[in-house]
Structures are given as structure tokens and as C-alpha cells.
């Protein structure tokens, strides 16, 4: 991986540049040209990234044996939940949607934490339990902010409306959201500086960038009602990492003669095709049965998201996993 690729794509540097452009570029945000590219970018990045976790899961050599529930049972369970929600959109559907919206910032935070640790490993830093706890907290702040402040998800979904409208609760919620907003940037910066002092393992600048980018996505872009861009950059970050892992694994396989770009291209095209089928064609299966496109699209997207979150929770584990081999091999190569 080149340095610029790491900083711009995986670290989220591009998203920071875009955020600055949106903030200070005047008419940029609403320009028709930029908006007109959104559907294509969503397909190429966001839709493909959801499918990439499935492609990664089923392309692993040990997929069915290591993850029998995930590979064999979760698909039919997901379809059953989706069908039930489409039958009852007002109750089940709405709750499924709220679950996905509540889980989503956690998924982003977990990805930021995983990447932060991965780059720390690669740079030779091994953190103890205390450092890892602070790192996790730093990454979780944007999630906690989204959880506390969301109206249709998180607290807005789980807590009764009457309770949230009690002035003292309302005030506490606003204060917590403000505090978490600030902590989303202060904690990573503080942690970075703290680790610079004394004989402690260093936090790479790229790890700091990953944490700050996640904060920018959930706070600044959400505030600017431009969160769709965050999903594109998150997808780009995910695809980059998934492709790197996939290619490294394939290249380590004995007798493999395919060039790296062949593996990368095949993985990406499989993800792109599956993403297109999942998001753009699958909902019409339910429309054929007489349901509205609105409920089909919304709930298909919710179920794909939740499936993606669950699959990711398993396939990116480093301990006792082939993923660790990829990371440590990369670290050794980089050393």
C-alpha cells in the first residue's frame, strides 16, 4: 500500500478534503454536477462494500467449516426477517429500520477501531489493555453521539417519547450530545499526544486520521445533511481493506500465478455485481408479490445492512484468525 493510498482512501483523507470543500467551497454542496454523480458513486462504493463482506465470507477457504451459522443459516434467517418486516412495515419494519440506523454508527466506530489497531500493529506498536480501552472509547464517541442525539434511532427509538420530552432529560440529552461531539475529536487528539510522551507505544498518524475522519462523518457531515458522502467514503475504506486482505491471502496460496490486480479486479467486480443485484433488483421480487417499492427498498436495505454488520463482526477478527497472518505479514514486509 502506498502512503498516499493509505492516507487518502483508508485513512479518510479524501473525505476530509471533501468536507472542507463542502464547508468552504460555497455552492459546491448543492451543485447539480456533484449531486448527479451520487447514484453512480453509491453503486460503485456503498452498494459494492455491503456485498464485499458476503463475497469475502464465502471466498474464504474455511468459510462453511469456520462459520456454519453465518454461512448456512444467516441467509435464510435474514430473508425470513425481511419478509416478516415487509408484511408488517408499520411495526416490524419500522423497528428493523431503527435497529439498522442505531447499529450503523457502531459499525463505523468498530471499523475505525479495527483499522486504528491494524495500522498500529503494522507500525510495530502493541497496545496494552489500558491503551486499547482508550482507543476504543475514542472510536466509540461518534457512535455514542449519534445514539444519544438521533430522533428515529438510538435513544429516540428506545426511550419513550414522553420521557425524552421531560425538560431535565431533554437538557441532559443535549448536554451529552454536545459533550460527545467535542470528545469525538478531543479524545483521539489527546490520546495521540499522551502516547507520544514517555516510553509508550506510539499511535500512528494514520490511526489518528481514521478516528478523526469517523468523527467528521458523524458530526460535521451529518450536521451539514451531507451524510451520504460519509457512506461513500466508509464504503471506499472498507473495499480497500477487504481487497487488500483478499489479494494478500490469494497471493499467499501455493501455486497462485494470478497477478494481484487480477484478484483485486475479480473481487471488486463480484462485489459490484452482487451489490447491484441486492439493492437494485431484489426489492422488485417483493414488488412482484404486491408490496410497494418504498417498503421493499427500505427494508431490503435495512436487512442487507444488518447482515453486513453481523458478518463483519466475525470475519474481521484478528485473534486466532488468518486475518492476523495478513496483518503481521504486511508488518514484516513493511519493517
Amino acid at each position, binding site marked *: 500500500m502506498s502512503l498516499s493510498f493509505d492516507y487518502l482512501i483508508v485513512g479518510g483523507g479524501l473525505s476530509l478534503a471533501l468536507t472542507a470543500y463542502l464547508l468552504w467551497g460555497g455552492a459546491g454542496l448543492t451543485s447539480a454536477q456533484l449531486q448527479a454523480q451520487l447514484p453512480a458513486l453509491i453503486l460503485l462504493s456503498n452498494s459494492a462494500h455491503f456485498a464485499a463482506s458476503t463475497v469475502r465470507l464465502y471466498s474464504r477457504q474455511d468459510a462453511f*467449516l469456520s462459520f456454519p451459522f453465518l454461512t448456512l443459516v444467516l441467509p435464510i434467517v435474514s430473508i425470513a426477517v425481511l419478509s416478516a418486516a415487509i408484511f408488517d412495515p408499520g411495526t416490524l419494519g419500522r423497528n428493523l429500520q431503527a435497529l439498522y440506523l442505531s447499529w450503523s454508527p457502531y459499525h463505523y466506530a468498530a471499523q475505525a477501531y479495527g483499522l486504528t489497531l491494524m495500522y498500529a500493529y503494522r507500525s510495530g506498536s502493541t497496545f496494552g489493555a489500558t491503551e486499547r480501552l482508550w482507543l476504543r472509547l475514542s472510536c466509540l464517541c461518534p457512535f455514542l453521539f449519534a445514539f444519544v442525539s438521533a430522533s428515529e434511532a438510538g435513544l429516540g427509538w428506545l426511550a419513550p417519547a414522553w420521557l425524552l420530552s421531560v425538560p431535565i432529560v431533554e437538557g441532559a440529552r443535549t448536554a451529552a450530545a454536545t459533550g460527545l461531539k467535542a470528545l469525538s475529536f478531543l479524545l483521539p487528539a489527546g490520546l495521540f499526544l499522551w502516547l507520544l510522551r514517555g516510553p509508550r507505544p506510539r499511535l500512528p498518524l494514520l490511526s489518528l486520521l481514521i478516528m478523526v475522519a469517523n468523527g467528521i462523518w458523524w458530526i460535521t457531515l451529518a450536521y451539514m445533511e451531507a451524510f451520504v458522502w460519509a457512506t461513500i467514503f466508509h464504503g471506499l475504506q472498507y473495499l480497500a481493506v477487504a481487497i487488500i486482505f483478499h489479494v494478500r491471502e490469494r497471493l499467499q496460496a501455493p501455486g497462485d500465478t494470478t497477478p494481484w490486480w487480477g484478484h483485486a479486479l475479480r473481487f471488486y467486480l*463480484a462485489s459490484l455485481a452482487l451489490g447491484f443485484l441486492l439493492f437494485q*433488483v431484489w426489492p422488485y421480487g417483493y414488488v412482484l408479490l404486491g408490496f410497494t417499492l418504498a417498503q421493499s427498498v427500505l427494508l431490503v436495505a435495512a436487512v442487507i445492512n444488518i447482515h453486513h454488520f453481523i458478518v463483519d463482526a466475525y470475519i474481521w477478527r484478528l485473534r486466532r484468525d488468518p486475518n492476523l497472518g495478513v496483518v503481521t505479514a504486511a508488518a514484516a514486509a513493511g519493517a
Partner: protein
Amino acid sequence: MAATPPLEGAVRQYPMCERPLERVAFLAGLVVFGASLVGGLVLLVVNGQPPGLAPDPLRHARASLRSGQTRAAILEYQAAAAIAPEFNALVELAFAHSQVGNALGESDACARALSLRPDTPGLRLGHGWALAKQGRLDEAAASFQEGLTLEPGHPMGHAGLGQVRLAQHQVNLAIASLTRAAELAPDNVSVRSNLGQAFLLGGRNREAVEQLETAYRLAPGPERLTSLRWAQQTEDAALAALAEAPPRVAASGRAR
């Protein structure tokens, strides 16, 4: 070159997987998912409708609205709003309801949209109109006033408030609001027309004739002509009565 398809690992592993129940579940999932995809593709082909690039839950709703199938659009918007009550979907739902004359549905959708973004003056005014159509005049007046607090120079806010005041027979308040609306939107026919009616009700016949003449000039039509003639006749009758009145009464009448 040894080709290594992305799914090769899993495909090779599957036959060796000794979990009969899980294998049945997997096959069932695969069949249902495959059938959904085939069904979806068939539907897209039959409808001659190319799939989009990004998921758009309001795609059918907007297409239906554009093609005049408003009731189909409402069903789509309602489904979207039931699952994910988003501002734009609710505003468009309100508009769709207004197209079929369902003022109750319109005001409900406006109220839900306003709960998401309370500081939207245009929507507050739209809510006011929807309430006024149902005869909920006090609520409508409150909604117009809230909208005008957010955007004091909105001509339709003053127009709506004036119309509601007129319906409530609060003539002086109606005249004040409609006069402000006419200042802000001098070429608005309904504002001129309503202001004319308000003046007429207030006994200010000459000003009523002026406003109704302006309305007729802006958009000639039989209804406005009738109103204008009626106002002119009222004004003439009033002038005639004044001419026959004792001098002191006539002087106070002209002063008005």
C-alpha cells in the same frame, strides 16, 4: 494462469460440510433469494423499466405523482413514511394528499414533517392552508402566525391568515393581513379578490371596488366580474343613499 474465482473456497468446502439441517437452510435461502432475483428481473423487463444505480425508495412514488397516478403515489409515500418518516417523503405525501383533495391527510403529513423540522416556514403555511380547508380555523390561524414568526415577509402567510380571519368574520384583522399580502404580492389575484371582499364586508365599498377591479384586470373571469359588479352596485347604492341623507349623516358617511 491459474484462475481463482472469488467463491472457489466456499464452493469447494460446501460438499464436505456435514451439517444436514444447516445445508437445507442454506439451499432454501439460496432458492428463495434466487427466485426473488429472477422475479425482480422479470418485473423490470416486463415493465420496461431499467433499474436505478442507487436505492431510491421513493422512485415509484415520484413517478406515479408525475404521471398523475396520485393514489398509487400516496400508497408508496405512506409505506415509506411508516418505516422511515423522513422530511421529504412527508412533504411530498402532503402534496399528494392536496392533489386529491384530502385535507386531513395533507395536514397530518404536514404535522409529521413539522415534528422533524419545526422551523420550516413554508411548511407551516402549507399546514395552515390544510387546516383551513378542514374548517379548523383557529388552528389554521395559529399555524399561519407561527409561519409568519419564522418568515415575516411571506406574502402567502399574510394571505392565508387574512383569508382565515375573513372566514372568522374578523374583518379588520382580515383587512390588515390582506393589505400586507397585497403589498408583498401586488399581482396576486386571490389576495386582491379576498381583500376586496373584506373591504366590502367592512363597508369600505370604494376600496372594495378598487381591489376587485385590480383582481379582474389581473385575471378576467366571470366570477370576478360578478363580484366586481356587485361591489360597484353596492358602492352606487351607498352613494345614492348618502345623497338622499340629511347633510350631517352624509358628511360622516363620506368621511368613512
